[in-house]
């Protein structure tokens, strides 16, 4: 894959836009409770959509003081119109704007809380990279954010990029838990050439706070169809493989691309238990997703990436 946006084929641009939509939505949701100003802005309800014509939209919703995200065609629990849709006229615009460089984006109001949704998005989108870069941020928090971004990118890359289909088809199906240490865990189910986020078996996604009445996952950050009932069912679910990092710092090194997964395995900073080829299949997708996320919007250096 070529390293600059202008050199990507139209199909690759659309994959990149889809990844950026999902990663942004999930990162702003995950970052919301970590920044006081953003937390304040998410105290009252709003619904924000990120949209590129022809691509599945991403949705960020604040409800009962919690922020949740859905992307890649996941259906939100309540089909209310968004208060605000940030409409990117093209995949290229989406990739540019969400990479932090100028591009076209049209704010389309649709509900009473459009202003609130916009304020939230501006603040959260600025907070997420700041939290990730800050030396004050504990490794576990950084690992949680990076893991959120990584699993989102994995799901969208698998769904949209035919390049990874043969690798995924070759890998066995099953459920993988990624454990970044200190309780930071996410689970993915691989079926055929698709990946989806699922609750971590045995974990109660409601433990982080009150459960909304509609049964959605209150921990937010894109656990589609979450909730206590599903968590209970998940207890009986077999985990086919576990990718465990020695500690959040080791997870950060791999998830931020500073160290390859195979090198981390050899250095015993990560381990795979269970169905190794299933995790190897994910590595192939992660490698591809990382290439997308490394695409630069401008050929001239200096936009800060």
């Amino acid at each position, binding site marked *: 894959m070529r390293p600059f946006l202008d050199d990507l084929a139209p199909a690759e641009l659309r994959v990149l836009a889809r990844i950026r939509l999902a990663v942004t939505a999930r990162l702003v949701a995950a970052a919301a409770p970590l920044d006081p100003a953003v937390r304040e802005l998410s105290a009252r309800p709003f619904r924000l959509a990120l949209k590129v014509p022809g691509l599945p939209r991403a949705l960020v919703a604040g409800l009962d003081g919690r922020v949740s995200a859905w992307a890649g065609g996941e259906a939100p629990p309540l089909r209310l119109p968004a208060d605000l849709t940030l409409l990117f006229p093209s995949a290229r615009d989406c990739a540019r704007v969400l990479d932090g460089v100028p591009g076209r984006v049209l704010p389309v109001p649709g509900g009473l809380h459009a202003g609130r949704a916009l304020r939230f998005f501006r603040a959260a989108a600025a907070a997420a990279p700041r939290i990730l870069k800050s030396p004050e941020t504990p490794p576990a928090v950084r690992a949680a954010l990076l893991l959120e971004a990584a699993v989102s990118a994995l799901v969208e890359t698998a769904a949209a990029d035919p390049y990874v289909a*043969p690798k995924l088809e070759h890998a066995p199906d099953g459920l993988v838990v990624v454990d970044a240490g200190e309780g930071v865990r996410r689970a993915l189910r691989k079926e055929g050439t698709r990946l989806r986020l699922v609750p971590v078996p045995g974990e109660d996604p409601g433990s982080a706070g009150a459960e909304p009445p509609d049964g959605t996952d209150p921990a937010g950050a894109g656990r589609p169809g979450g909730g206590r009932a599903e968590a209970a069912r998940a207890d009986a679910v*077999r985990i*086919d*493989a576990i990718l465990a990092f020695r500690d959040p710092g080791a997870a950060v090194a791999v998830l931020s691309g500073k160290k390859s997964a*195979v090198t981390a395995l*050899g250095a015993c900073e990560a*381990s795979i*238990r269970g169905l*190794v080829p299933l995790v190897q299949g994910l590595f192939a997708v992660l490698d591809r997703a990382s290439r997308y996320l490394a695409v630069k919007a401008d050929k001239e250096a200096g936009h800060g990436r």
Partner: protein
Amino acid sequence: MAADRFARSKAVFERAARVIPGGIYGTKSPGFLLPGKFPYYIESASGSRITDADGNVFVDYLCGFGSQIVGYGNPAVERAGSERSARGDLLNQPSPLMADLAERLVSRIRGMDWTVFAKNGTDATTLAVSLARVHTGKRVVIAAEGAYHGAANWCSSNLFPELAPDRADVALFRYNDLEGLEALFRRHRGNVACVILTPHHHPAFRPQVLPDPELYPTVRRLCQAEDALFVMDDIRDGFRLHPEGSHVRFGAEPDLVCVAKALANGWPLAALLGTGRVRSAADSFFITGTYWMSGAPMAAALACLDEMERMGGVGRMEALGTALREGLESAGREAGFSARVSGPAAIPYLTFDEDPDLYLNQRFCGAMADRGFFLHPHHNWFVSLAHSEADIAATVEAAREVFVEMSGER
């Protein structure tokens, strides 16, 4: 804190990872084993034992991925190879030994009339497929899902779209699924160049499978009807299942046979053997490689063939492997595990019935490694003629301890 028993392995790996993609790549990558439980680098080996970079000694059941059949550093083999090497290994022309070895192989491997030499198994299988295509004038290669025929693009797990054209004419069926095989022949009627199979099915990460009694007769019938060739990839099994080729053990009648690994006890040598029917294709095909006719591995191979017979051959490996299988299964049963050893006795692999994801397998092999036994958790094992009855007994005894330990964790 206890000292890290693989400290040097890890230190070397960290250095290597800076200048070598993956640090160690392919089947020898630490990720294919259990990092922290197995060494990454081996310093020396002798007989059935390997000594790693940290000085840990293991009774080895991987045998250099099957290449060691008469023991690491077998004196007769090493002497033959070294003497030839001292007089010149890679020369402008082959040494006369090439004809000696060719005659020896052709007279030994049943049904074969000619042979050519190469270095790796991949060379032999890829050449076999090419010859089958040239001989038949057809393109399609039929193989079994999960089978390993080497690291070339037509058969490897490098499933990148850019390489898809290399795999375009390779059709896969589920091993032993005779109806599926027949269906593939129907679908590709008039286009099948060959079927390529390993004598028994030995996929990584899964139990091994012996051929259905009807598999080889069916292959033969379908190939004859299609005028396609049958290629036996005997690289991993070769010389452990039958002295005249593994196809003899299973009653198969291949047109081409690929051997490597055990042929020269680890000296780099592969061979493709064929029937007279395919000879003209081989005569007309440009076959070469800088190192393919080097003399030292051929001298080693001749000595290795002698040593195999002197040390008891297939019968002894079968007996040792049977003792290992029976001992492991019995020890597992006593501790309440349904541990099963699949595959031929000399090429065993242990898995647990209740453990499709291999957690128990990894636990077992990791604990055995702690005790100094190198049993790969994800790849079949090998018994060699250098293993002793005492090695087998010690392995079973250690396994008994491990099973009891694992039983306590339930």
